[in-house]
């Protein structure tokens, strides 16, 4: 019974749904504020993401006559649920996640693949012209980043000799210098994550000047609120996963590690925002070319390097 209550607490309050949603608001605000400061603007006040969410909750939902009602209204929640479920397997501070088993890295990667697919289905079942174009672009972009992303997340796992996120974190926390080997694939993962989050320079699925707002063009009110929330929760998940795999530095003291988690995630967010603020949108076919000709070889090279290090030097 006590174990059951503990799991309920962990899933719904900390580090589960409540913490995830609150921290997603914090990260969204930090992202927008940094973006504004980089454009020498003042930027939004701290409560802005919350105000946006509450406002959208209170608005009417319009479902287009041609749209498939079931898929149209279920997709935001599918997206949000997948992100929340994936978040359970990522250790935030210390080396243990809420749930972990052998091979949960693969599970996290598949949970990370669901939000773009939900976005695609949402756009496809909206039956709008812009929504359909945005949806196809989401899927096209997925073909670009998925392979380098998988490879660059599996390369650190080779050295750690495990497929579990918690054990990878534990391994690299015990051998902090080994993280330096993974620097090239940390870079490719950062770029691939930027593409997964559909932020500039890879924001062609929701390019406002071309396809209005892509797959979500027909969404309004509550459904849009949950899609936006799923999007910022995805940002939290991505940043936490990146911190767990590429920056697994620990102090061993629990409150200090907890503070360190915020420092690490905000540090990564600065890079993601800098990329968004400093680069213009890349045309979709160039995104594919860039990912297949530059990022995939770098990530593959990392895999070969790690295999050699493991097989020949026995580290």
């Amino acid at each position, binding site marked *: 019974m006590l174990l059951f209550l503990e799991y309920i607490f962990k899933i719904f309050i900390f580090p589960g749904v409540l913490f995830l949603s609150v921290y997603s608001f914090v990260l969204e605000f930090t992202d*927008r504020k940094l973006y*504004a400061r980089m*454009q*020498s*603007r*003042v*930027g*939004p*006040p701290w*409560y*802005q993401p*919350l*105000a*946006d*969410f*509450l*406002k*959208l*909750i*209170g*608005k*009417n*939902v*319009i479902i287009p006559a041609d749209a498939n009602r079931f898929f149209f209204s279920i997709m935001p929640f599918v997206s949000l649920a997948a992100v929340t479920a994936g978040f359970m397997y990522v250790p935030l501070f210390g080396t243990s996640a809420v749930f972990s088993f052998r091979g949960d890295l693969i599970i996290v990667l598949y949970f990370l693949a669901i939000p773009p697919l939900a976005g695609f289905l949402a756009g496809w079942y909206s039956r709008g012209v*812009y929504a359909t174009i945005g949806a196809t672009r989401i899927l096209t972009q997925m073909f670009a980043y998925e392979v380098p992303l998988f490879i660059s997340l599996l390369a650190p796992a080779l050295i750690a000799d495990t497929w579990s996120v918690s054990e990878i974190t534990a391994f690299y926390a015990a051998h902090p210098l080994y993280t330096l080997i993974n620097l090239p694939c940390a870079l490719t993962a950062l770029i691939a994550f930027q593409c997964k989050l559909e932020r500039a320079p890879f924001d062609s699925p929701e390019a*406002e*000047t071309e396809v*209005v*707002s892509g797959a*979500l*063009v*027909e*969404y*309004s*009110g509550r459904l*849009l609120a949950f899609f936006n929330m799923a999007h910022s929760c995805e940002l939290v998940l991505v940043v936490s996963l990146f911190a767990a795999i590429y920056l697994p530095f620990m102090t061993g003291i629990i409150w200090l590690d907890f503070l360190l988690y915020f420092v690490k995630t905000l540090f990564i967010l600065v890079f993601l925002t800098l990329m968004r603020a400093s680069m213009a949108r890349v045309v979709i076919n160039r995104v594919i070319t860039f990912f297949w000709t530059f990022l995939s070889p770098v990530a593959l090279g990392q895999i070969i390097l790690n295999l050699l290090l493991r097989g020949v030097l026995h580290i």
Partner: protein
Amino acid sequence: MRMIKKAITWGTVKSPWIIHFNAGACNGCDIEVLDALTPRYDLERVGILKQGSPRHADVLICTGAVTLQTRDRLIQIYDQMSHPKFVIAIGTCACTGGIFDDCYCVTGGIDSVIPVDVYIPGCAVRPESILRAVDTLIAGLQEKKGGEHHEA
């Protein structure tokens, strides 16, 4: 229940997302609208974001005396927005028809087609007046008078 309603009203006041529609304006007012969105005035300070899709937006910012060509499109855009929604008429043409009033191809002002919440006269309006209009709209919302007419 009252708490939730209060929170939603607070959200509506703090985050008006706008969409900009040119109903046959000479582009003067449109440039000023874009000017208000630039870093110099930075409307994101008060939570304003420009949206591409009318479904996402709360405030329709309209310029121009409505020409017959744009009338149906204006109505369509207005219908595509979800409630609660507000309309700001920007510029003399949008308020009354301006110098194009009584022209054969012009219906004469936004309010001849859709209900308008705030009028801003001027040819062309200045970004400061657009800020003022949004402020008036927000003040009207706080007094729960949204939907009635205000002069900015």
